[in-house]
């Protein structure tokens, strides 16, 4: 129960932050990515502001356990793999095309109209397709 309440609080705060910062407005996000046009720096302030509490949170995890649950995440991997880079480039292309990423796509679903719903449906379909896609790619590699 405690764990679910914490998750609810975190989700609500995440949603409020995305709403307040303007990150559910695709014009602001695409404005940040438009370095060659009328550049909108807002997203940099959002990212910087978001990293601040997390720098301290990560320090606090050392040698401790979370309030609920057993362990903190393992130390970050350091291998730069091709799925990491190609996947991130693919994500960046979709992000630039529409101006939505997964958090804001969810946060704005109640007021984003059919456009938001269509984007979210396509995004969820893409996520759902990845495990079979991965298996297909792996078997292709194995036969070559």
């Amino acid at each position, binding site marked *: 129960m405690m764990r679910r309440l914490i998750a609810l609080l975190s989700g609500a705060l995440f949603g409020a932050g995305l709403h307040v910062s303007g990150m559910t407005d695709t014009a602001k996000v695409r404005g940040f990515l438009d370095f060659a046009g009328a550049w909108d720096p807002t997203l940099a302030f959002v990212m910087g502001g978001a990293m601040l509490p997390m720098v301290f949170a990560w320090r606090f995890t050392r040698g401790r356990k979370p309030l609920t649950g057993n362990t903190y995440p393992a130390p970050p991997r350091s291998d730069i793999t091709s799925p990491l880079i190609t996947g991130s480039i693919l994500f*960046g292309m979709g992000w630039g095309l529409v101006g939505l990423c997964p958090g804001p796509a969810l946060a704005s679903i109640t007021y984003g109209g059919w456009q938001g719903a269509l984007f979210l449906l396509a995004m969820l379909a893409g996520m759902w397709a990845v495990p079979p896609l991965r298996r297909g790619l792996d078997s292709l590699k194995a036969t070559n």
Partner: protein
Amino acid sequence: MPVEWIWGLVGGVMIGTAAAVLLLGTGRIMGASGIVGGFVDGTGQDRSTTLSFLFGLIGMPALMTLGGWEVATNATSLPWLLIIGGLCVGIGTRFANGCTSGHGVCGMSRLSMRGFMATVAHIGAGAATVTFVRVGLGL
């Protein structure tokens, strides 16, 4: 204009606090694509925690909108753009194991090299795409 980035900073600190609450409270990383992706493809565990998180994430902006704080999404009305964009975001984030919140907010704040590299790729590909769409396609 200055007011807008002050709201960006305020909202950003709220997002970071949300990530800190989830990390210290449950031990989970607040990555939107990981949380919703694991739920969709069935690989995710701890589903009741995920559902509570999603309920807050969707419910809070809905309440704020009802309360009069409205934000326009200004999204394109071209269906093919929305579908291709959504597919790229869905497939890309799952292949890369993270998006702007997981790799960006949670990864870079622990000095993860993968987080930095992913974020550079996000912004680089995003900027190239926005410029191509505006200048190349005239949209």
